[in-house]
C-alpha cells in the first residue's frame, strides 16, 4: 500500500496518504461516501440550581432520516453531560474517549471531575485534528466550583455562556432563548424553555426532528429525561388490516394449499 505501512506501529492520528488518489477519483466522476451527520438542534442553559441540556433526536444522512430516535446527550461523568452535533461517529467517539480519561483521572485524584477538565481534554483533542473531527458540542455540568456551560467548535475554540445552542437548528433555538431567557430560572421554567427551544428547532429546521431529550444537572443529582416530549408521534395503521369496522363478514372458508411435490418411491437416489 503506502510507505507508512512499513514504518512500524501506527502513531495515531489521521493518515492523509490517500488524499491525492481520492481527489483524482472525484475528478473522474466518482462520488465520495457520505457520512451520518446529526443535522441537529442542541441547547444548554444555566438555571438557578444547575444546568439543563436539551437535544432533538433526528440523525440524517444527507436528505434521509437515518435514525428517528437517536441519543445526542452523551455521558461524560456522573456530573457532566455533553450534547453533540456534527458527524455522529465523531461526537460518539470523542465523548467516549474523554469520559474514559476522566474515569481514570477520578480514580487517581479521588475527586469529582470538573467541567473545565472535560472542556480542556475535548478542545485539545479537537484542535490537534485541525477541525477534521467534525464534532460541535455543548458541554454542561455541575462541580465543586458551581454550574458551568460551554460550547466547543470543531476547530477547538470554546465559549462559556449562560445559554447556548449549536447545530443546524441553532438559529431557531437561539431565537427562543434570546427572547425568553433570564437569570435565576427555576427547574420547571428551565425545562419548559429548553423544550420550547428544541421544539422550535424540530419544527423549523429540516435537519432536526422527532423527539426532545432533556438532561437536568444539579449539585449531586442528575435527571436524564429521555423523550421528554414526543411532538411527532407515528400514526400507526391498525394491525388487523385497513378494513373499516363496518365491513360485514360474509363467509369464512379456509382452503388448504395442495402439496405440489409428488413423492416418487424408488426413484434414483441423488448423486453424491
Amino acid at each position, binding site marked *: 500500500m503506502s510507505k507508512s505501512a512499513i514504518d512500524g506501529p501506527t502513531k495515531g492520528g489521521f493518515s492523509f496518504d490517500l488524499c491525492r488518489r481520492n481527489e483524482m477519483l472525484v475528478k473522474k466522476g466518482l462520488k465520495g461516501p457520505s457520512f451520518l451527520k446529526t443535522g441537529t438542534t442542541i441547547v444548554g442553559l444555566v438555571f438557578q440550581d444547575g444546568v439543563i441540556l436539551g437535544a432533538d433526536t433526528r440523525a440524517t444522512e444527507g436528505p434521509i432520516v437515518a435514525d428517528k430516535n437517536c441519543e445526542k446527550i452523551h455521558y461524560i461523568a456522573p456530573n457532566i453531560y455533553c450534547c453533540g452535533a456534527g458527524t455522529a461517529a465523531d461526537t460518539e467517539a470523542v465523548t467516549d*474517549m474523554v469520559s*474514559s480519561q476522566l*474515569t481514570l483521572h477520578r*480514580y487517581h485524584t479521588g475527586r469529582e471531575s470538573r467541567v473545565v477538565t472535560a472542556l480542556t481534554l475535548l478542545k485539545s483533542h479537537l484542535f490537534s485534528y485541525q477541525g477534521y473531527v467534525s464534532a460541535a458540542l455543548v458541554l454542561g455540568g455541575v462541580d465543586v466550583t458551581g454550574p458551568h456551560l460551554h460550547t466547543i467548535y470543531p476547530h477547538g475554540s470554546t465559549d462559556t455562556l449562560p445559554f447556548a445552542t449549536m447545530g443546524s437548528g441553532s438559529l431557531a433555538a437561539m431565537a427562543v432563548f434570546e427572547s425568553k431567557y433570564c437569570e435565576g430560572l427555576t427547574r420547571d421554567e428551565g425545562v419548559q424553555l429548553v423544550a420550547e427551544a428544541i421544539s422550535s428547532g424540530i419544527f423549523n429546521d429540516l435537519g432536526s426532528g422527532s423527539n426532545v431529550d432533556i438532561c437536568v444537572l444539579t449539585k449531586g443529582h442528575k435527571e436524564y429525561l429521555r423523550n421528554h416530549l414526543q411532538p411527532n408521534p407515528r400514526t400507526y395503521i391498525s394491525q388487523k388490516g385497513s378494513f373499516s369496522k363496518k365491513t360485514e363478514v360474509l363467509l369464512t372458508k379456509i382452503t388448504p394449499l395442495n402439496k405440489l411435490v409428488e413423492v416418487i418411491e424408488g426413484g434414483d437416489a441423488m448423486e453424491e
Partner: protein
Amino acid sequence: MGDSQYSFSLTTFSPSGKLVQIEHALTAVGSGQTSLGIKAANGVVIATEKKLPSILVDETSLQKIQILTPNIGVVYSGMGPDFRVLVRKSRKQAEQYHRLYKEPIPVTQLVRETATVMQEFTQSGGVRPFGVSLLVAGYDDKGPQLYQVDPSGSYFSWKASAMGKNVSNAKTFLEKRYTEDMELDDAVHTAILTLKEGFEGQISGKNIEIGIIGNDRKFRVLSPAEVEDYLQEVE
C-alpha cells in the same frame, strides 16, 4: 549459598533452576506489613495493617487499599511505591477493556493482565521485579472472587489468604476459622481477629484498613469510624 553468584542478574537462571531476583522479591513481600483477604458467600473482604513510621505521619493521607474498578479492589504487602505503579497500570487496562468491549472487566481478566505486567518485569533488561504481592477482591457475574498475584506474575484464586510478616500464623488461623457459608459480616470479624493475632500494640480504626464488596458489587474502603464499630463488635 551456591546461588549467590547468580543473584545479581535478573534474567539468568541459577543452577538450581530458580530466578533468584524473584525469590528476593518474595522476601521483600514477606517483610512487608500483613494483609489478608477472605471470600464469603455473598462478598469479599480484604484488610491490612497500616503501621506508620511515626505518630507524626498524617494517617488520613495514606490509603493502602485501592479501588481499580467500581467492583474490584486491591491490597498489597511489600513496597508501597511499586504498588502505586501497578494500580495505575491496572486501572488503565480496566478502562481500555471497557472502551473496547463496553462491559466491565471480569475479575479474572484484570488479574491476568496485571500478572502479565508483573511477569514482563521479570523478563526484560534493566528492570527489576515488583516488590509486592497483591490481593485482588472483586465481584462480577461469576460471583465473589479473591486472587493473589506474586512478583513472578503467577496468580492463584483463594478462599482466604494472607501475606506479609505474619503469613504463617495468619494462614493457620484462617484455616481453622474459615467456613464455606460465611456471610460478609462474619468474614470481616474473622479478618479483624486474624489481624489482631500478630498485631503489635493497640489495634484501632486508624491503624488497620478494611475494604469490602458485597452483593451490590460496589467496592468500598470502610471509614475509620466503621472499622471502630466492627472492632467493638469483635471484642
